């Protein structure tokens, strides 16, 4: 142990790193094919939705390979969902660790967000790389925008997860409701359909979903020929992310001691 006192950020860095490794080990150590399951969930979505699409193949898709189209929506969505829910449960899952004074709930939030961001990005790269390798068309027209959008999803998931963690502390029942809410969100975020096929009269309501904007922009950034509607806007999800992060951090700050007492 170091003789002189460590600086706060040095402690936090060490703790987040330790928690990251621990989460990684506990997540995958238990199953023999732990890492394999990681790819299985998004692939199951891709295969099922591709089969479904096979029967509705007359839909216009601008000459885009449908499995690739699905991946660009499903994997970022699942990453966002995993980060949010993992951060939400971060306090309960690590409760015993808070007996070490160095470890605070924020460290658990950060470690979990980082781990699921890391896993999501890895899965994204692996699946898209695999698809390009077997001959599907994966143009990656605008990689910078892709990176930016993924960063937005990570930060939004962290912010939202922290908000839910605080809500869940005072209203434990809310957690199962929040988990359920991701199902309708899945259908409303354009995961398996391009927004242009939505009838005009429903469009204004659908556009209130920031996640839809991110997914659409993601398609626009990956594919050469994808038609992004003019109503789709980068500023809206970006501002939403900032607001979520602000609320999450502020609320955490105000309630950080209450989070620790069960």
């Amino acid at each position, binding site marked *: *142990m170091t003789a002189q006192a460590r600086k706060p950020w040095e402690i936090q860095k*060490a703790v987040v790193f330790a928690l990251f490794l621990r989460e990684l080990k506990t997540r995958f150590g*238990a199953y023999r094919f732990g890492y394999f399951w990681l790819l299985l969930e998004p692939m199951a979505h891709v295969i099922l939705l591709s089969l479904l699409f096979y029967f509705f193949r007359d839909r216009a898709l601008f000459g885009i390979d449908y499995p690739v189209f699905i991946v660009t929506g499903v994997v970022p969505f699942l990453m966002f969902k995993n980060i949010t829910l993992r951060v939400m449960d971060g306090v309960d899952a690590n409760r015993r660790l*808070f*007996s*070490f004074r160095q470890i605070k709930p924020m460290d658990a939030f950060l470690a979990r967000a980082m781990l699921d961001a890391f896993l999501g990005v890895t899965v994204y790269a692996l699946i898209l790389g695999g698809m390009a390798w077997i001959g599907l068309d994966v143009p990656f027209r605008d990689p910078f925008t892709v990176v930016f959008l993924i960063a937005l999803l990570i930060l939004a998931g962290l912010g939202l997860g922290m908000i839910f963690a605080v809500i869940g502390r005072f209203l434990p029942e809310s957690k199962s409701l929040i988990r359920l809410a991701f199902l309708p969100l899945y259908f409303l975020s354009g995961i398996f359909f391009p927004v242009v096929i939505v009838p005009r009269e429903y469009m204004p309501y659908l556009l209130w979903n920031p996640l839809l904007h991110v997914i659409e922009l993601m398609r626009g950034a990956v594919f050469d020929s994808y038609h992004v509607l003019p109503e789709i806007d980068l500023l809206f999800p970006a501002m939403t992310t900032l607001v979520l992060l602000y609320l999450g951090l502020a609320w955490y700050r105000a309630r950080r001691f209450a989070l620790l007492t069960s």
Partner: protein
Amino acid sequence: MIELQDLTKSYRLTSGERRYIFRRLNFRFPEGVNVGVIGPNGAGKSTLLRLIGGIDHPDRGRVVTDQRISWPVGLSGGLQGSLTGRDSVKFVCRIHGASHEEMLEKIGFVRDFAEIGEYFDQPIRTYSSGMRVRLNFGLSWAFDFDYYLMDEVGAVGDARFRQKSRQLMEERISRSNVILVSHAMSEVARLCSVVVLLNDGQATLFRDVGEGIRAYEEMGAMPQQNRSRPRAGDGPKPPVPTGKRGPAGAGPGLLGGAPRQ
């Protein structure tokens, strides 16, 4: 130096009202001595330990210290069932900023102390409760602190392990100090040179251990209703997520999860 400044700590009862453990408590721990903290059940001994350990936070006021203070000795903090004993030692090393060499040294120390053989590389959930205790204590004594926090001395394991554990503890305490919360007055008398008596939110320092214990025992003879504020025995305990209530290191509650035999 460990000093409590204007310390206020309360818990909310299920009925909604607040129960105060400490109200504007000011106290300075004497330096360089082993301190025994005694008092009746519910006086806030464990809460005080948690506040000093930085695990719990006061409503108002603060704990000021320039000392390195341990986590409660023998507590199974980071020991998660799915991690192996070795990984748990690594984890605790990492959060304490140990270098690679230090980490290897701690791993060796804990492995030798715990004497759990090949189980050291098995998930902790497969341990017996005795094995967990050995690992927990090994982990605590592997690190150097100015103050070790102890909630009961915890006489656990077989006679030989107890003997070894005791020797190691005494060796550590000869270099550092301990703040011991205990109901076992013989332990307090043996290990500590001053006593802090907690009662009714007040802390009284006794420089003479025997005198402190006598004061406690006289008080302990009095029934509950003698206290100034109504404090029913069924009032909720302060929340203790780790469930350390029994003798430290003894119950499955302390270790989290039912031990598998």
